[in-house]
């Protein structure tokens, strides 16, 4: 089985978020970057599927040279080779175009990625990639098993779960509990150095969106304590000040 796993290079979940250059750039100073946690699930499932069915895992990232340590980690975890599209991942459509262009070069049975990145949390790329390739796409996929040329998947839908049987190939945006995150071992780390990491230039560099400014969410206000006996005041504040009832 030939699997393409698309990964994002995102700030660690505990990073302090700040902006520079008049709030037009994310401040990377002191920030540690990781494989997107949802992408990590996709990669972990790909490794398991490869263990079961054999085949090859190609990991793909759209990013500049600074993302290579993150790509190496994916290789250490178990991907066989990597492709980096040498471009800043400006927006979902741009990224989806790059992924689709790479995907067309190989015959992939599965194209897996996280259900969303954890920086911009767009959650759109898998759907766009599906459309661009004329393939079905599913998200968020919580279970994925392959038998021959079909896959049984479970995805989360509003208020429940949906079980589907799908023919390969298709695109899936993954989330837990599709697999357990994998920790690379020392052999994986050693072999990651010698696995191919091919850098390709973007096919179409058109960017359709433009970033004007970042803004942090407003700071949380102070907590107002109300006496337990004073229900009237509580209702009044919820209705007229917080406007939630």
């Amino acid at each position, binding site marked *: 089985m030939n699997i393409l796993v698309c990964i994002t290079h995102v700030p660690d979940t505990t990073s302090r978020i700040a902006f520079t250059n008049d709030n037009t750039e994310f401040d990377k100073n002191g920030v540690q970057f990781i494989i997107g946690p949802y992408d990590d699930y996709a990669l972990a499932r790909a490794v398991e599927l490869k263990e079961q069915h054999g085949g090859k895992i190609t990991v793909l990232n759209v990013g500049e040279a600074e993302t290579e340590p993150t790509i*190496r980690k994916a290789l*250490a975890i178990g991907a066989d080779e990597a492709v980096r599209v040498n471009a800043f991942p400006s927006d979902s459509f741009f990224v989806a175009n790059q992924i689709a262009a790479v995907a067309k070069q190989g015959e992939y049975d599965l194209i897996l990625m996280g259900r969303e990145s954890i920086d911009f949390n767009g959650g759109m790329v898998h759907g766009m990639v599906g459309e661009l390739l004329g393939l079905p796409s599913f998200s968020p996929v919580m279970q994925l098993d392959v038998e021959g040329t079909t896959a049984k998947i479970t995805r989360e839908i509003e208020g429940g779960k949906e079980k589907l049987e799908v023919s390969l190939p298709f695109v899936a945006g993954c989330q837990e509990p599709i697999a357990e995150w994998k920790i*690379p071992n*020392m052999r994986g780390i*050693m072999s990651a*150095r010698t696995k191919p990491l091919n850098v390709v230039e973007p096919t179409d560099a058109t960017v359709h969106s433009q970033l004007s400014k970042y803004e942090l969410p407003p700071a949380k206000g102070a907590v107002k304590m109300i006496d337990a006996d004073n229900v009237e005041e509580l209702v009044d504040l919820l209705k007229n000040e917080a406007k939630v009832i």
Partner: protein
Amino acid sequence: MDFELNENQRLIADMIKDFGEREIAPFRNEWDDKQEFPVHIFKKFGELGLMGVLVPQAYGGSGFTYDEYITVVSEVAKLDPGIGLSVAAHNSLCTGHILQFGNEEQKQRWLPKLATAEWIGAWGLTEPNTGSDAGNMKTTARKDGNEWVINGTKNWITHGKSGDVAVVIVRTGEVGDSHGMTAFVVERGTPGFKAGKKEDKLGMRTSETAEMIFEDCRIPETNMLGKEGEGFVQAMKVLDGGRISIAALSLGIAEGAFEAALAYSQERHQFNQPIFNFQGISFKLADMATKLECAKLLTYQAAHLKNNGKPVTKESAMAKYYASECAVSFANEAVQIFGGYGYTKDYPVEKYYRDSKLCTIGEGTSEIQKLVISRQILR
């Protein structure tokens, strides 16, 4: 000269943090409290390749250099110094001795089991009455046909009880003769080889320290490492590498204590400001940051020499001496910065404070390191 961590080291550090957050951090206080040696963690470390870091892949190891080995020991130590100590002892003493001085058959026989943590390794040099003065050891091995018969007691042995295999250095010649000692490998289950008392320790309580007792313990000649009479010289060479281990262990503790104190100094407010704003606190941290870099440079220098097969006795003694003294003083200052909270088990610095002290004692006290350094600089 590159002063930054290489890509392997960064990946290894990440791997250990990821593993440790899930499998070690939630349990370490309980293990420490009960003085429990978490064998299952070492088995998992075996799967990850952390128990044979320096062992070539041909023998089931990971085949890395001392650079990556330092990262392994210091990152594990940052999570839990006791587990870091056990990783260091397993890798550099028992496994390291067989790797350096075993013949091909011996390497094939023991290294794959050690590198994968199927077996945990112990190493026995110290005795009740001979710590720094190893040359006066009392444990003996007497030749009887094709066998050797060992009698005596080794103590302060890491994994003395749980170890599946031990390298022991025993007397085969005259007392005081540095060529009168020989190294043997003894497997658990050999008649006459048993564990004695497990020590109840101040710190490093997640690492097992126990006695190993030999009573007419018969082992075949094929278990001798190298030649008869080479044991002490071999042990000194093993300890040259072992000192890099303890320097790395100390680095992990020092860095852990420093990072905890630095973070706390910015969170803790007194007189309406973070305590970091007071020079009484920030100067302590500035000193720690500077000394930490010195300790790292000394340790990586020793690793660099070791990787290139150059003499490392002086440099590894310097690294071990300096880094271990840093670990103790940083842990002390960190508790001071945390104040009352630092004196409780709610924060990690209390444990660093207890654990760190081993570093200036084990594998050669600071005084012995100075003795080694002074002998070396006189040449």
